[in-house]
C-alpha cells in the first residue's frame, strides 16, 4: 500500500506553496499575543541595531574625513631649479602609497598667507621667505608617516611636515573608536539574534503538539517546516516596519539640523540618500534573516517524531 505512494518526494507543488503562505498568515492572526510578543521583540532589537548602526556609520565617516584631511607638507630646498622641481614632482607621485601631490609655488603660498592673516604680511612680497611646497596625500592615511619618510629621503627636500606625533594620536584614537564600535555592533547583533530566536522558539514550543499531530497524519518534515519558516519571515518583516520608519524619520531630522551647521567643516555626516536606504535594507534583511533562522533552528528538534 504505502509502496504505491511516490517513492521520491517530488518538488513541492505551487499550489502547496500557496497553501503554506496562506497557513502562515492565518497562523499569525490566530496566535494573537504570541505574534505580538515576537514582533515586539524584533521591533525593539532592530530599532536598537538600526540606531546604533546609524551612529557608528557616521562616526566612521567623521573619522574617515578627519583622516583624509591629513596631508604631508613637503618643503622644496631653495637650490632646486624648475627642472629639478619637475623631476621631484614625478618622483613623489611615483612613490608607492602616494595618492596625490599638488605643487604650490612660494608666491602662491604667500598669497594664501595674506588671505588668512591680513595685508601686513604683504610686506614680504619684496623678499619672500617661504619655500615652494608639495602637498602630498597618502592613499592610506594611516601610512602617512612611512610616505613622509620616503619623501624626506629624496634629493632637494628641505623639510617634511605631517603633524608628527599628533596624527599618530589621532589615528590611534580613531582606530580604537572603530574597534569598540565594531565590537558593540557585533554584541548587539548577537543579542538581537538570541532574543528574537528565543521568542520565536517559545511560540513554536507552545505548538509542539501541533507538530506532532501533523507528523502523525503523514506530513513530511518540509510540509511542517515551511509554514513555520514563512511565519518567522512575516514576524521579521512586521518587526522591521517601525524601526525603519523611525530611523528614516530620525535621520531626516538629524541631517536637517546638523548639515547647515557643518557646512565648510572638515567632516560631514553621511548624505541622507542612499545611506538611510541602505540602513533600511539592512534592518529589513536582518529581520527576515533572524525570523527565518529562528524558526528553522527552533523547529528542528520537534521534527523527530
Amino acid at each position, binding site marked *: *500500500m*504505502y*509502496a504505491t*505512494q*511516490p*517513492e521520491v*518526494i517530488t518538488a*513541492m*507543488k505551487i*499550489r*502547496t506553496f500557496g*497553501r503554506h503562505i496562506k497557513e502562515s498568515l492565518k*497562523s499569525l492572526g*490566530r*496566535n494573537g499575543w504570541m505574534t505580538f510578543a515576537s514582533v515586539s521583540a524584533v521591533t525593539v532589537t532592530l530599532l536598537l541595531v538600526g540606531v546604533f548602526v546609524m551612529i557608528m556609520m557616521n562616526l566612521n565617516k567623521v573619522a574617515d574625513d578627519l583622516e583624509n584631511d591629513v596631508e604631508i607638507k613637503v618643503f622644496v630646498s631653495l637650490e632646486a631649479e624648475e627642472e629639478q622641481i619637475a623631476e621631484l614632482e614625478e618622483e613623489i607621485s611615483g612613490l608607492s602609497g602616494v595618492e596625490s601631490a599638488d605643487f604650490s609655488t612660494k608666491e602662491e603660498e604667500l598669497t594664501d598667507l595674506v588671505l588668512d592673516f591680513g595685508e601686513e604680511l604683504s610686506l614680504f612680497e619684496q623678499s619672500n621667505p617661504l619655500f615652494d611646497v608639495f602637498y602630498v596625500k597618502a592613499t592610506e592615511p594611516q601610512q602617512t608617516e612611512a610616505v613622509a619618510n620616503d619623501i624626506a629621503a629624496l634629493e632637494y627636500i628641505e623639510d617634511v611636515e605631517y603633524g608628527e606625533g599628533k596624527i599618530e594620536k589621532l589615528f590611534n584614537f580613531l582606530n580604537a573608536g572603530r574597534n569598540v564600535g565594531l565590537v558593540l555592533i557585533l554584541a548587539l547583533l548577537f543579542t538581537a539574534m538570541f532574543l528574537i530566536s528565543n521568542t520565536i522558539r517559545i511560540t513554536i514550543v507552545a505548538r509542539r*503538539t*501541533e507538530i*506532532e*499531530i*501533523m*507528523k*502523525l*497524519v*503523514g*506530513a*513530511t*518534515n518540509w*510540509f511542517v517546516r515551511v509554514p513555520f519558516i514563512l511565519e518567522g519571515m512575516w514576524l521579521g518583516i512586521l518587526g522591521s516596519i517601525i524601526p525603519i520608519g523611525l530611523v528614516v524619520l530620525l535621520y531626516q531630522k538629524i541631517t536637517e539640523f546638523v548639515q547647515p551647521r557643518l557646512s565648510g567643516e572638515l567632516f560631514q555626516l553621511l548624505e541622507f540618500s542612499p545611506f538611510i536606504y541602505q540602513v533600511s535594507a539592512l534592518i529589513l534583511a536582518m529581520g527576515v534573516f533572524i525570523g527565518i533562522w529562528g524558526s528553522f533552528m527552533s523547529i528542528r528538534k520537534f521534527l523527530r*517524531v
Partner: protein
Amino acid sequence: MIQMKNVYKKYPNGIVALNGLNVEIDQGEFVYIVGPSGAGKSTFIKMMYREERPSSGQMLVDGKDIAKLKNRKVPFLRRDIGVVFQDFKLLPRLNVYENVAFALEVIEEKPRIIKDRVMEVLDMVGLKHKAKMFPRELSGGEQQRVSIARSIVNTPKIMIADEPTGNLDPDTSWDIMNLFEQINSTGTTIIMATHNREIVNKLRHRVIAIEGGLIVRDAAGGDYGYED
C-alpha cells in the same frame, strides 16, 4: 496484511514492553487489544504506524518490514493508516473542516477534491453543520468524531485506535463504536486498544489480550476477560 514476528521492544530506561510477540491480522478484521495498563498495549499499537521501532524482530505491513523503513518515508506509511487517540489530537488552532482537510493537504490533493471529500466524511460522522467550529467548542464525543473523520478521509486500509472511548461517556462511546462498525463494514481493518468491557463483550470481535509483553489470549469473538 499486518504481521509481527518475534517483536521485542526494550526502552532505553530498561523496560521491556514487548517480549518476542507474534501475531497476524488480516485485511478487514476488527481486533480489540485488551490487557492491564503497562502490559504493552500502547507499544503494540505504536509499532504499527512507526511511532516506535522494534528493538528486534519484524514488523510487516503488506509484506514490507516497516522497522527498516527510512525516516523520510515514514510520512508515506502514515498516510495509509488512520489513527485515532483517546485525547483526539486535533489541531487546536484549526476548525473542524480544516482539521479534516489537513490530512488531504498533506498529500497535496486538489482543493476541489479536498472540499468534496471533507464534507462527505463530515456528513458521515454527523458534523457537517459544525464544520466552522473549533475543537474547544465541541464536546468530547464530537471531537472524537472529527478525529475519526480525519483518520478516514484519505480512505486508509488500516485504522488504529488507542482507547478511542477512554474519555467519553457510555452513550457517546456507543455512537463512536457505531462509526467504527460502519468503517469496518467497508473493508477497513480496525485495531483498537480498549479498556471498555461492555463494548468488547457486546460488539463481539477478535480479542487479543496482552500481558507482560506477550499475547496471552487470542480469540475470535472472545470476551473482555478482565474485571476492571
